[in-house]
């Protein structure tokens, strides 16, 4: 069965080719069947393989397909690695991906058939790249997938390419990702020169003998790649803009899967990070800073998708905090629960936008609970889950990270907890403003309000169930010994030293106390936000600090002034240089020759006497040269 693992990415690739090549002749129904069918098949295959991986005593299997690059002593096989970590990601990607494909069939139904097929082909290509990313047995295959998902993200953000702003958002995402990718690429080259290999197992075993400085350098460069892909400070600004794409795309790419690629990569290289304490600290601090920073921005956003986008950035920051303090299992756990509840929230938001006829401003919504019962209930479950209220999934994964953070340093814990409170606050602000109170949109919109079709509500319900119960996969030791199924499952892969042990060393009492504290605070803050915004939402333009937050701390403006403008200036200077100096030289040579030719042409008078005179002068000149100049 495991030898068939190559089918998992190949099926979406086939879907991409079919939908992409025959987009002008396929009907929408056929496109949907192909697009969703390949994903479902991949999901079933993943489940079957999961059945094998789950068994006790399973060892990681590498399936080599062919030799990809072979130069001198460097061999990079095109190989897939099946182990506990990759199968978990496979299940998340194909499972959540299938639900989102299904949802898209209804959400994108207004598109013309060729564009509909284009959308699905991009989506399938994305899933293919993402599967390649998590299945690759070495950093190069991972990088191929890494670039592939970046490309698909670009294509899908700019799906409505006729809108200039959407196109700009797509370019921003692509360029920001490229900056990170450069770090990743350098890290790969460094690995090749240091270890002579990029295969995970060989790099990790080689790393034990390498100096700490080298490992720190490589891990920091890898982290630069991760900050780009996973939207961390300072490269996070592309993710909120990426909301220009269709909402299911935001759910799949910019919440559930692609942005977790950085987490996956660092979790995969946990053996490297465990050897470089400096890098771990950097990861934790950047993650924590991003979590807090994005959460403050989310407090004042009024675009339903922007709130979710900043909450995604914030949750990703959490995951990096988990990675940085050594709670690799916690981070992967949070990836999983986050995939469920954030996909749910985005799809719920999509359902709301669909009902509102494209309106995204929550100030113009309100009271949608009556019109959209399924959406509002599932959205509520998503909010509860992300806010960290037990027994929903977000509580368990967030708590595991917070506990590990506490073990590393109480400062991490306090900031993390504060961020968790902010999260609860803005999520319930969003929920209350959108779903309760009275409707504030136009009369026409009110008339148009309707619950979404079942192709959209079924994914919502499935994800809501998952978001509610997924937390039980990782019940902390303190509550119920030996009930952390996920940790047990992942232990062969994530055996990083440090954090995990530290978390265990904490006394049971402390851990329970921390848990109660975070759960209690989340509940109180959620209730506060709910009661404050349910009847009188925040409609006025913010002022003071709120204005700074609403304008995202002016980071985009800062980047514009510090990086974009000077680059434009440089580009203008280069244009000038190119136009006047380089073109001037090239054209000048041409013009000189033309001018010289025009002048010399006059010598051709046709007068034989003139020619003879010139000939004699020439001979005389040669004669004089021979006589006086030579020697």
């Amino acid at each position, binding site marked *: 069965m495991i030898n068939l693992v190559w089918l998992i990415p190949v099926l979406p690739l086939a879907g991409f080719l079919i939908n992409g090549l025959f987009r002008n002749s396929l009907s929408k129904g056929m496109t949907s069947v192909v697009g969703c069918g390949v994903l479902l098949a991949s999901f079933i295959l993943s489940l079957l393989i999961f059945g094998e991986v789950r068994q006790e005593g399973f060892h990681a299997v590498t399936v080599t397909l062919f030799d990809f690059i072979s130069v001198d002593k460097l061999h990079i096989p095109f190989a897939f690695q099946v182990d506990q970590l990759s199968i978990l990601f496979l299940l998340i990607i194909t499972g959540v991906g299938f639900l989102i494909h299904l949802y898209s069939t209804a959400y994108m139904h207004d598109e013309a058939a060729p564009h509909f097929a284009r959308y699905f082909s991009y989506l399938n290509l994305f899933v293919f790249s993402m599967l390649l990313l998590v299945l690759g047995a070495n950093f190069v295959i991972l990088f191929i997938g890494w670039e592939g998902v970046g490309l698909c993200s670009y294509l899908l953000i700019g799906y409505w390419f006729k809108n200039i702003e959407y196109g700009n958002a797509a370019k921003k995402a692509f360029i920001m990702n490229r900056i990170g990718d450069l770090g990743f690429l350098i890290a790969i080259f460094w690995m090749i020169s240091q270890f002579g290999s990029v295969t995970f197992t060989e790099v990790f075993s080689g790393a034990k003998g390498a100096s700490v400085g080298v490992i720190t350098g490589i891990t920091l460069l890898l982290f630069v790649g991760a900050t780009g892909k996973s939207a961390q400070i300072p490269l996070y600004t592309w993710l909120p803009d990426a909301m220009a794409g269709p909402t299911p795309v935001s759910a799949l790419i910019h919440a559930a899967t692609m942005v977790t690629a950085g987490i996956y990569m660092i979790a995969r290289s946990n053996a490297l990070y465990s050897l470089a304490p400096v890098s771990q600290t950097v990861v934790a601090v950047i993650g924590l800073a991003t979590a807090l920073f994005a959460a403050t921005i989310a407090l004042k956003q009024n675009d339903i998708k922007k709130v979710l986008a900043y909450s995604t950035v914030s949750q990703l920051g959490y995951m990096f905090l988990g990675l940085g303090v050594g709670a690799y299992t916690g981070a992967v756990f949070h990836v999983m629960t986050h995939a469920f509840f954030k996909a749910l929230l985005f799809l719920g938001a999509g359902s709301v936008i669909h009902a509102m006829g494209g309106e995204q401003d929550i100030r113009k919504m309100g009271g949608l609970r009556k019109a959209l019962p399924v959406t509002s209930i599932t959205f509520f479950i998503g909010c509860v889950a992300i806010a960290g209220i037990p027994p929903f999934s977000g509580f368990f994964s967030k708590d595991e990270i917070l506990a590990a953070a506490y073990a590393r340093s109480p400062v991490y814990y306090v900031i993390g907890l504060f961020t968790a409170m902010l999260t609860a606050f803005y999520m319930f602000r969003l929920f209350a403003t959108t779903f309760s109170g009275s409707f504030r949109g136009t009369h026409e919109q009110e008339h148009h309000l309707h619950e979404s079709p079942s192709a959209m509500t079924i994914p919502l319900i499935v994800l809501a169930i998952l978001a509610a119960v997924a937390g039980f996969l990782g019940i902390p030791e303190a509550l119920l010994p030996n009930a952390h199924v996920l940790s047990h499952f992942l232990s062969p892969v994530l055996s990083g030293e440090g954090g995990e042990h530290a978390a265990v060393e904490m006394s049971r009492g402390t851990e329970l106390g921390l848990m109660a504290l975070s759960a209690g605070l989340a509940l109180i803050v959620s209730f506060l936000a709910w009661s404050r915004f349910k009847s009188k939402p925040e409609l006025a333009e913010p002022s003071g600090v709120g204005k700074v937050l609403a304008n995202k701390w002016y980071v985009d403006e800062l980047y514009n002034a510090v990086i974009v403008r000077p680059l434009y200036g440089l580009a203008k200077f280069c244009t000038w240089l190119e136009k006047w100096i380089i073109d001037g030289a090239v054209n000048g040579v041409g013009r000189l020759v033309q001018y010289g030719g025009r002048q010399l042409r006059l010598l*051709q*008078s*046709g*007068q*034989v*006497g003139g020619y*003879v*005179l010139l000939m*004699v002068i020439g001979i005389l000149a040669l004669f004089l040269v021979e006589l006086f100049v030579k020697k």
Partner: protein
Amino acid sequence: MPINYYIFLALALFCIGVAGVLTRRNAIIIFMCVELMLNAVNLLLVAFSKMHQHALALANPQAGIDGQLFVFFIMVVAAAEVSVGLAIIVMMYRNTHSIDVNFLNRLKH
């Protein structure tokens, strides 16, 4: 006679030839001036040949003979040139009813 005399004579003939080619417009006269230049060179060749023969006669009786041989070649070539050149001039006269070379400026087009 000292060799200088021959050199000066040849130089004078050559310069007359050059001046004639440059200044005259009659094709026949230009032609004669070209012949004059050729013969100036011939004269010089013969003069140097004779000088070398004198100087080297004891060591090598054949010395300097090649200069005089060259002269014959030049005369043969000149004769051939005359036949071609005169033919051109005749054709030119038939076309333009003139042997003024300034009429031949149509080459530039």
